[in-house]
C-alpha cells in the first residue's frame, strides 16, 4: 500500500473514532486526539496542536473543525486531501448517528433514559475538559505571564460577557508584546 493511501486511511480511522466518541458536543475528545495525532502518529507538534485548537475556537462553527488543520498538516504532499479526509472523519460518523437516531427517536420520547444518560455522562466529560486544559498547556508557553493571562481570561469569561474571539484576540495582542 502506498504511503499516501495509508496516511489517508489512518487519518480517516483516527477522526472517525473521535467522532463517534464525541459526547458532550465533542468537548471530551481533546486529550485522546492529542495522544493520537501528536504522541502516536506525530503528524503535528504539541505547539501546533494548541494553536490549531485556538484557530478552531476563533473561527465560526464547532471548535472540532480544527481537525481539518490536523489533516492538512498530516499530508504535506497533498494537504487539501488530508484536510478533506480529516473533516469527513470528524463530522460524518456522528452526523449519520444523529440522522438515524432521529428516525427512531420518537420511540424513546417518553423514556427517562435520555436525561439519565446525558446527566450521567457529564462528570466524565467535565473530567475530560480538565484534562484538555492540561493537554493544551503542553503546547502553550510556560511562565508567570502566560499563566497570569490564562487565569485572567478564565475569570473574564466567567464574570463578563466578553466573547471567546474577543478574549483570544486580546491575548494575541499581549502575546505580540511579550511572547515573541
Amino acid at each position: 500500500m502506498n504511503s499516501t493511501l495509508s496516511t489517508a486511511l489512518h487519518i480517516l480511522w483516527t477522526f472517525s473514532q473521535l467522532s463517534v466518541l464525541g459526547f458532550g458536543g465533542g468537548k471530551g475528545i481533546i486529550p485522546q486526539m492529542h495522544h493520537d495525532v501528536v504522541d502516536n502518529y506525530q503528524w503535528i507538534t504539541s505547539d501546533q496542536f494548541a494553536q490549531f485548537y485556538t484557530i478552531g475556537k476563533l473561527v465560526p462553527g464547532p471548535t472540532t473543525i480544527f481537525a481539518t488543520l490536523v489533516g492538512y498538516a498530516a499530508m504535506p504532499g497533498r494537504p487539501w486531501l488530508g484536510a478533506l479526509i480529516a473533516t469527513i472523519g470528524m463530522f460524518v460518523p456522528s452526523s449519520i448517528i444523529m440522522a438515524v437516531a432521529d428516525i427512531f427517536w420518537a420511540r424513546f420520547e417518553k423514556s427517562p433514559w435520555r436525561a439519565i444518560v446525558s446527566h450521567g455522562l457529564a462528570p466524565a466529560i467535565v473530567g475530560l475538559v480538565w484534562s484538555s486544559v492540561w493537554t493544551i498547556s503542553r503546547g502553550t508557553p510556560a511562565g508567570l505571564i502566560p499563566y497570569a493571562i490564562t487565569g485572567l481570561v478564565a475569570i473574564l469569561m466567567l464574570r463578563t460577557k466578553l466573547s471567546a474571539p474577543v478574549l483570544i484576540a486580546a491575548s494575541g495582542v499581549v502575546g505580540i508584546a511579550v511572547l515573541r
Partner: protein
Amino acid sequence: MSADASAPAIQSRPSLLQVALAFAAISSTAFGGGQKASIRHEVIKRGWMDSDQFMDGLELAQVLPGPNILNLAIYCGQRARGIPGAIAAFLGASVPPFVIVLIAGALYFKYASNPYVHGALRGCAVGALGLTLGNAFELSWDERDDWLKIVLIIFTAIVVSYFKMPLLLVLVLFGGIGVAREYQRAHKAQAPK
C-alpha cells in the same frame, strides 16, 4: 413527491437549497452558544417546525456525539425534507467552517514563522487555554450537588492526563458509574414515601 396532507399546518416545505443556505448563513457568522438561538429563530420563523419539536431536537442533539450545532442542523434538515434535507443541512453547516478554517490554516502555514505572528499565536493559544479553564470551572460548578460526581471529575482528569486512559474506556467506566448514579437518584426520587 407531494406534501403530506396530514402534516400540521405549521410545516412548510423548503427547497434543499433553502435548507443548505439557511444553515450556511448561521454556521458562517455565529459563534458558540449563539448558534442554537439563531437556528431556533430561523426554523420557527420559516415554519419548518414548532418550538416543541425544536426543543426535542436540541435535547437529542446534545445527548448524541458530535457538535450540537451540526447535530441540530441535521435534525432540522431531516424534519423539513427527510434524508436529502439532512444532507443539505450537513453541507450547509459544515462547508463554510471548513473553507474558513482552511483559509486560516493556509495563512498559518505561510506566516507562522514570522516573529510577530508567532507571538500573536502563542498569546492566542494562552487565551484559548484560559477559555478552556473557565469552561472546566463552569461545568464542574454545575455538578456540585453530588460529591460522587466531583470525585468522578477529579478521577477522570487524573487518569486521562497522567495515565493516558483511552477515551472509550473513560466513557464506559466513568460514564457508566455516572449513569448508574443518575439512575439511582432518579429511582429514589420516584419511589413512594
